[in-house]
Every structure is written in structure tokens, then in C-alpha cells.
């Protein structure tokens, strides 16, 4: 078979496999009514993407001061903050601001103590029932993995936080519900959590709703895939190594086959 034919055949295969894969991943979840989040500019996208540590630190502050009143972050321990550039003492101090129940002690009693770096982030509610009771029956999602659990990821988080609006005339809001075109069904049980100046940043960044939303989305992207920088760094080494190996193996193959062709 001549090379042109072979190439066009390979291209055809690639195209159809590609289409098949697209078919597998484009599943709109009732998107017709819900608005699609706009793509934001994130530093972490692409094979060269990196964490924006300053933004993540600010996002941590937003989470701790605002969101943690309702949302748990159950995959994250205080010690994980070491990865964000906090030193051991700072992490200890952050943890110590929270109380955890421990025990039983030698008398068989449970007791309260300050959280330690090895503890997971303290949960805002004792259990789901308590969380629902305080939130008009709705459950505030655990945020650790949300950036991976929604197709639009951090774009979605940003969109929800900045998307609160007055409902259009034809929308009848349920009891205790708020209008948000990005949340499925366009009604969300969470009241707008961020307002200009909700937190006070120490690095001079203006605490606009957009800035805080972007920071907390950066933070939640980190909580969802804290391994990202390691992964991409190792990935480059592995892929470059494999490219060289492939080239060498190709040369070997040519050499071995030279006597046959």
C-alpha cells in the first residue's frame, strides 16, 4: 500500500476515534436551562500550568472566614497547608484556632482540644442532618473535590459565586431560594456568600467579589488536585524520555530491517 493511502487511512481512523471520544465526553447535564460558565484565565491550565500560590493563600482565607461556616473540606488536613508555603509554626497556629473532640481519656470521657496539623479541617456541622437543619433543608456540598466533580470545574465555582442576581419576572423563587443562573435549576439554597470587603486581604489585593471568587476557586482547585504540579513536572520528564526512547527504537528498527527491504 502506498504511503499516501496509508496516511489517509490513519487520518480517517484518528478522526473517527476522536469523534467517538468526543461523543463520550460531551454529555450536557440538562444544560438547556442552566447557563454555561464562562471560561476564566487560570494559571494552572495547560501542561505548563502552575499553582498561583498567592491566590490560593488568599482563597484559603476566604474559605476559612466565609465558606467554612457551612461547607466542609473533608479531604484536607491542616498539615496539607505546608504545601502552600506556610511553615510548621504557622500551620500549628492555624490549626490551633479550631477545636476538635478527642478521647476517650483515661476516665472514659471525651474532651475538647485545639486541632493539630495532623487533624482534618474541622467540619462545620456534626452531621448531614444538622447541616440541612441550618440551611433550609439543603446540604452544603463538601468542597474538597468540587473543582473536579463539575464539568466546568473552577469556572463553575467562579460563576456560581459571582452569578447571584435578581430573578427575572417570569421566575418564581422557592422558599429561601436565591436566583443563580449557573446552578442547576437556576435556584440555589445558598444565599450570596461574598460581598465587597467580606474579607480583609493583607497583601493589598482589593477584596472585590470577583477577586475573592477567583481566589477561592484557585484554592478549591488546589484542594481537588494538590498533586498537579508534581504530576506535570514528572510528566515532562517521562514524556521527553519516552520520545527519545521512541526515536532510538525507531532507529534500531530501521537498522534491523535494513537488510530486508
Amino acid at each position, binding site marked *: *500500500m502506498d504511503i499516501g493511502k*496509508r496516511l489517509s487511512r490513519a487520518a*480517517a*481512523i484518528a478522526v*473517527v*476515534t476522536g*469523534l*467517538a*471520544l*468526543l*461523543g*463520550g*465526553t*460531551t*454529555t*450536557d*447535564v*440538562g444544560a438547556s436551562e442552566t447557563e454555561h460558565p464562562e471560561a476564566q484565565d487560570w494559571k494552572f491550565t495547560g*501542561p505548563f500550568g502552575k499553582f498561583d500560590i498567592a491566590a490560593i493563600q488568599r482563597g484559603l482565607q476566604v474559605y476559612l472566614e466565609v465558606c467554612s461556616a457551612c461547607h466542609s473540606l*473533608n*479531604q484536607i488536613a491542616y498539615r*496539607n497547608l505546608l504545601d502552600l508555603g506556610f511553615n510548621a509554626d504557622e500551620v500549628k497556629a492555624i490549626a490551633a484556632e479550631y477545636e476538635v473532640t478527642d478521647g476517650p481519656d483515661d476516665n472514659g470521657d471525651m474532651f475538647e482540644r485545639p486541632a493539630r496539623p495532623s487533624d482534618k479541617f474541622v467540619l462545620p456541622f456534626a452531621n448531614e442532618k444538622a447541616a440541612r437543619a441550618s440551611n433550609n433543608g439543603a446540604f452544603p456540598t*463538601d468542597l*474538597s*473535590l468540587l473543582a*473536579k*466533580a*463539575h*464539568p466546568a*470545574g473552577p469556572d463553575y465555582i467562579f460563576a456560581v459565586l459571582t452569578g447571584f442576581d435578581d430573578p427575572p419576572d417570569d421566575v418564581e423563587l422557592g422558599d429561601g431560594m436565591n436566583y443563580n443562573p449557573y446552578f*442547576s435549576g437556576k435556584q440555589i439554597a445558598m444565599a450570596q456568600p461574598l460581598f465587597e470587603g467580606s474579607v480583609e486581604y493583607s497583601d493589598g489585593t482589593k477584596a472585590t467579589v470577583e477577586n475573592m471568587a477567583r481566589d477561592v476557586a484557585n484554592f478549591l482547585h488546589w484542594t*481537588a488536585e*494538590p*498533586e498537579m504540579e*508534581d*504530576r*506535570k513536572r*514528572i*510528566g*515532562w520528564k*517521562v*514524556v521527553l524520555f*519516552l*520520545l527519545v*526512547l*521512541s526515536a532510538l*527504537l*525507531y532507529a*534500531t*528498527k530501521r537498522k*534491523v*530491517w535494513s537488510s*530486508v527491504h
Partner: protein
Amino acid sequence: MSSHTQHSGYSVGGLVKWIDSRLPVFTYLQKEYGEFPAPRNFNYWWNFGAILSFMLVLMIFTGIFLAMQYTPHVSMAFDSVERIMRDVNYGWMLRYMHSNGATFFFIAVYIHLFRGLYYGSYKNPRELLWIFGVVILVLMMASAFTGYVLPWGQMSFWGATVITNLFSAIPLVGDWIVTWLWGGFAIDNPTLNRFFSLHFVLPFVIFAVVALHVVALHVTGSNNPLGIDPKGPQDTLPFHPYYTAKDSFGLAVWITLFAAVVFFAPNFFGEPENYLRANPLQTPAEIVPEWYFLPYFAILRSIDFDLWFIDAKLGGVIVMTGSILVLFVVPWLDRSPVRSARFRPVYKWFFWIFLLDCVLLGFVGGHRPDDLVFEGVKQLEFIDLGHVGTAWYFIHFLVIIPVLGMIEKTKPLPTSIAEPVLGGGQAAAGAAAKPMEKA
């Protein structure tokens, strides 16, 4: 290998000889992977056997190490997978290699299967070889399905619910079978436990069937792009070094692609919602299987009508099962004496149409049946494409292939692999049906 072994029993060569005279593994390797005469004209589509072997070993290795850290309990499974991702050294790498490994395993097996359909590799004398291949495909599906349940995310749980519920369509004993599969009256801890157990063992069963597949291959010898039998040593090359070199190169390219996905887009093929913990009280807006099951899913859902005493659900299950079972009998449906589609001008076209049909079914499987294919065209819903695609799937196997085998005018076959000069007036028929000559 054993030329300089005489002087002592302590050299490596001596040890090899000692073992070999008691258990001839080295003789076997030399015969089956060293001298093994392979047709000299393989193209790169013949690389996928090696690639598949690699993927199976990779899945078993990464799987065993995942299993060391994984906890098969409904209240701990999800967190134990996240622990692997976060706290186990390079656990994210193991897990992403394993989850994307399943994807690449299926890409490879589908390419391998379509290669066989194109070049007629299932024909006499390779029917049993083909059947073992289809058995491997079925076992892979069972492995992937049980594996996908293990992280106990929303899609794990609801996917398992949808698939196990299919058994309830079986008349009379259906509900009883479902309860038996679940180990209770709902998908719960016993279900997760047995799925883990099955998921652990099935790949080793696959390994055994692969061994049979390879033994069968080495009895009949490989097919080749021309689909004619080698006539003598001038038509073949020893497997080593020619195909070891070629396969190594192809495998390296494949692993490069795999690594690019594992390290740079590890969740590209995954369903985001599986990062939400399973919640039996909250049905996801849409339950979709992994991409490699989408064509079957489309076939299942395309039966949306009752037929006589068969209701739509049972009909869907029967047709979906049939779509896999029909592969077993392809060697007997195709009566054409010519193997390779290169010499079958009409079959060649139908091959590509069939491939497109499978892609179309995959596309349909990823959408809700009542979604519109084109925004604004009210007449065309995905279910319509599903009907057409499913019908064509069976027409291809049950009508096109048998009929073509009888009426197609094939092109003349070359006289030998070494002399692929066409037009030698060689009659098409007969050559392919002759039993393989041993080179």
C-alpha cells in the same frame, strides 16, 4: 544462547541449560518468540497484540498496588481512593495509570478487533483464536465494570444500579438474580465486597485466556495484511529481531501517548460526577457509562418499544447481548474465501461504514435519547440515530457479511507474500481457504 556453556555448571548459560533440560521454558521462548516465523509484511496494525499484553500487565501491577491501600467498604471506599491520591507516595500516579489504563486498554482492543475484521483474521483456520479474543473482550468488560464501582462515586453507584437492574428483565427469575447479585435487597456493602473480589480475580482469568489466545495463534501462525498464507521461508521473518524491534518501537509510541494523558489530562476520559461520593438517595441528572461502553449503551436504549410478549427492557437486554454474541459467529457468517479487505472491494466499503456506525452508536450513547441531534431540528432525536445505528449493526453482520461472502467479486490475490505483484492472473478463491503451510 547455549554455545559457551560447557565448561561449568555455574555460568548463566549452564544454569539455563540445566533448567531447560528439566523444564524447556527457554527452548519454548526461543521457538515461539525467537525463531517464530512471522509473515514479513505486517503493518503497524499488527502492533496491538504486544500493546495489549503490555496493558494487561500494567493493569495487574497497578491494580495490585492499589488494592494494598484500597478499602472495599461503602463508608470508606471513596475516602480510601482519595487517600491513595493524596497521601500514598505516587498514589495519584498509580490510580491515574490504572483508570486511564482501562481507557487505553479498550482503545487498543477495539483497534485490534477492527484490524481482525478488516483483514479477515477470524477465518479458517483462526476461528478459535478469534473466539478466545471475544471471550477476552467480554472479560475485560466485566473487569472494567466491576472496577468502576470500586471508588464508590456517584457514577460507580448509579452505573452499577442501572447495569445490575438489567438482569431483572429476565422473565420469572430476573428479580431473584438481581437480589443474588447484590447480596441483598439493594446495592450495598455486600455488593461492593463481591465486586472487589471479582475485580481482583477477573484480570488473572483474562491472563489465562490470553495464554490460550497466544497458543492458538502460534499453532495457526499470524494472518497478514494480504491475508494469504506464507508459502515458504522467503515469506516470513524470524520474530526476533524483526518484530521485537518493530513492536518495541510501536509500544514506545503508545506508552508516550498514554503518559501524555496520565500526566497532563488524567480526567479527560472520566466522568466528573464520579468525584462525588455515592449517594443512594440522589440520582444524578444523567447516568452515563464510561466511553468504552457507550455503543452498547446506545444499543440497549434503542429498543424503546414492546415486541409481542417481549417488553422494551428485555428487548434492549437481548439486543445488547446479541451485539456481543454475534461476534462469536462471525467466522461462520463470512463465507468469503478471501481474507483481506484489500482484495474485497465491496466489503472494504462496508467495513468503513460499519466502523462509522459503531462510532455513531458511541455518540448516541453519550446523549439522552430525547435530546435533539441538531439544535432546532425537532424531527431528529438521538433515539432515531440509535434505531438506525442499531439496525445497521445487525444488518452488517447478519445480511451484508453473509451476502457479500456469496456474491462479491474479489480481486486477484498475489501469488505470494514476497511477490506482492498483482494481476498475475491468480484466481482469488481457494488460496485463503487452504490450511496454513508451516514455514
